[in-house]
């Protein structure tokens, strides 16, 4: 015979049990209220999205003329303050990049852009150019909804025609609040990281509209090598073909921009030459083909993927301060060289 959990000799009254269940439900309700009250204000990895959404609602006196959208490479590598100052005439330029930003997230931000914006720089890495552009984690969409960004015209444009937008973008408010609980964990992680990684300026990364550079110190050589090796394996196992939807999505965004009297430029971000050395040539062939296809369809493309050396990066993908300066200068030069008229779709 096994050791059994003993049962009471007489069944107890249900009243105590019902009271406990009621208390549990009350706790769940209290937890929901707590979530509704705190998650939107917590500093998690998507705090920058919250900050941007808030800034769009309360625009400063000098609203942006040009905005850059992209991921953490854009955050770390593009000083929009310096970029705007170098353009002629100088113009207010904002860096709207967020960590791991996908085209769908970009679209959610574009839908909320202030009317002052006349120029959009869509910054993408070489592999981003030929990768899936819309696959977005549900948690990010939940956070975007929580911060007040909703699906508009642009989000529908980048999403494949005929398929429904992700369900997270259409959830009712109570579900959005409930599903946003992951932000608590992100906040906990961020708080610890802020204490342990003094080299990171998390506040600047969250709240700087011009240059939200997060990583400034070069990582340890062993870590660098390991990351390079991991990336080499990942890149070697990929098959690089242009996703037809990516091309259509970018062209649709350009058309949308033009309809709104805005200029839309695709900027290919600098790539670490060490990565180039370990990458199958098929990636670059596909990227070139994508760039050519975009140009054939009238999209302006600035390819700055080779402007930096390996020493300009703090890790395998993020430019350091010197790399950012070089890239910003190169982009300013390229933009100055481009004609000012908004191209027709």
């Amino acid at each position, binding site marked *: 015979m096994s050791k*059994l*959990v003993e049962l009471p000799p007489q*069944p107890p009254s249900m009243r105590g*049990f019902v009271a406990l269940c009621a208390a*549990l439900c009350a706790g769940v309700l209290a937890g929901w209220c707590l979530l509704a009250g705190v998650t939107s204000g917590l500093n998690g990895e998507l705090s920058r999205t919250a900050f941007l959404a808030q800034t769009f609602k309360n625009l400063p006196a000098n609203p942006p003329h040009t905005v850059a959208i992209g991921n953490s490479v854009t955050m770390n590598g593009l000083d929009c303050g310096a970029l705007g100052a170098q353009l002629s005439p100088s113009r207010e330029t904002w860096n709207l990049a967020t960590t791991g930003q996908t085209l769908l997230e970009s679209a959610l931000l574009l839908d909320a852009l202030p009317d002052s914006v006349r120029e959009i720089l869509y910054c993408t890495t070489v592999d981003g150019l030929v990768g899936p552009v819309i696959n977005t984690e549900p948690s990010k969409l939940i956070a975007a909804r929580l911060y007040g960004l909703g699906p508009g015209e642009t989000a529908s444009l980048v999403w494949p025609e005929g398929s429904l937008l992700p369900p997270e973008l259409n959830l009712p408010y109570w579900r959005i609040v409930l599903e946003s609980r992951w932000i608590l964990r992100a906040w906990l992680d961020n708080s610890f*990281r802020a204490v342990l*990684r003094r080299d990171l300026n998390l506040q600047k990364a969250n709240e700087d509209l011009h240059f939200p550079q997060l990583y400034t*110190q070069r990582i*340890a050589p062993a870590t660098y090598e390991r990351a390079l090796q991991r990336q080499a394996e990942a890149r070697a196992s990929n098959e690089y073909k242009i996703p037809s939807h990516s091309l259509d999505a970018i062209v649709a965004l350009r058309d949308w921009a033009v309809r709104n009297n805005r200029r839309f430029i695709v900027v290919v971000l600098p790539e670490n030459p060490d990565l180039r050395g370990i990458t199958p040539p098929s990636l670059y062939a596909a990227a070139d083909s994508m760039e050519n296809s975009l140009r054939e369809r009238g999209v302006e493309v600035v390819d700055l993927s080779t402007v930096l050396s390996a020493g300009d990066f703090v890790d395998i993908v993020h430019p350091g301060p010197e790399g950012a300066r070089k890239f910003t200068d190169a982009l300013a030069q390229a933009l100055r060289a481009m004609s000012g008229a908004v191209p027709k779709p």
Partner: protein
Amino acid sequence: MIFPTFTFLCFFAALLAVFVLVRAHASRKAVLLVASCVFYMWWNPAFILLIFTSIIIDYFVARRMDFTADQRKRRALLVISIGANLGILAFFKYANFFQDSLLWSLRLTGQQPDWTTLNIILPVGISFYTFQTMSYTLDVYRRELPASRSFLDFALFVTFFPQLVAGPIVRAADFLPQLNAPVRLCFDRVAFFLFLRGLAKKTLVADNLALFVDGVFTNPADWPSAIVWLGTVAFAIQIYCDFSGYSEMAIALARMLGFSLPVNFDRPYFATNPSLFWRRWHISLSTWLRDYLYIPLGGNRGGTWATCRNLMITMTLGGFWHGASWNFLWWGVAHGVALLVHRLWVEMKMRLPWHETLDASMLYRFACFLALNYFILATWIMFRLTDFNKMRVALKKFLFFDFDFHFTSIGLGALYIFSTVTVMLGFLVLHAFGHFFGGLDERLSRVRPSVGCAAAALVGVLLTLFWPTSSQPFIYFQF
């Protein structure tokens, strides 16, 4: 259908509503049987036929066995039952494995066979209910238990939904007698807090750690030893909380329905030797293996070497029970070797004049605790990684520390390393508290009602705030 879902909540509420309407004893058992079938069929309706095949074979074989005194006939009937059960298990659980292994062996010899892969679906809980029905016929064969006269009772014993898909493995001798008494609902605070304890272990600890563990073990070559160590400790906690959490929820649900199930875990990581560990980890399986495999093989009655052989066979098959993959086999072998080494060490130690002083020493016991946990952690790597190359890399990083950890390597997001450590520390503190002073759920079931309600509300808040948004399947469902 799994316990921590809204679907299950509705299912259980509906079952209770029917119980309120149906008062007759036999009717309540029938309702439970139907509910158990619905519970199982929610996953895949067809496989209920497989369970009933086992039920029908074992019910009639046991009945027939009970009626005959001829030992040869009884043995033949036992062979039919065991053959049928193991045959079903072997086909559904191990056929793919044997086929892949055969293919691999043939390719080693230069042959290229072109037969089609079987791709058989593994029925959920097959290992659990097969062992349960086998123990029944073995008990009847040994005349330790009379064959059940009621098909309804026997079918309910096998399909009883709280323990159907992931245990605890219940013995007929423990369960069938409970069906003779009227089925009475038992909504007490013990069941409530035990369920909450299991739920919290599964959702707040195991599922939160799973994000980190999956990140580390997807490709251990990417991480330094420190992260592999952290991932391994996290997995040790994850699998314990996942499985013991399920068992506790199962025991609590059974208790609410008026049934008593066996305890399945007893804080195994506080054990100080492998033998003690296996008396505390998945107790219903280890006692099953002891009673129906190790002892029939001869147990420890045939001298040192026979004991060692029996231990190795038992643990290797125990490892293989977990899954049709080489890593589970090696995991079982490793535990068999540990039990064997421990046994030899105990025999050697007993000859030492100061062995009593040694056993009483806190330092010695602490050293045993550390050594055992170091071994257990290493074997969890074998358990977690089915890919041999990844397992080799992870074990190397675990055993030979590379001192290559920098906080500057931790970027944004990625693994949620800090919150993972927080969850681990929180669990370890509560676990140690429970070990030395008694479990929180036991204490809460004895406090004043108002304090109990406050605790329930607090758990409600914690569940709402920290239940991960991505649900993780129960690890032991795959077995």
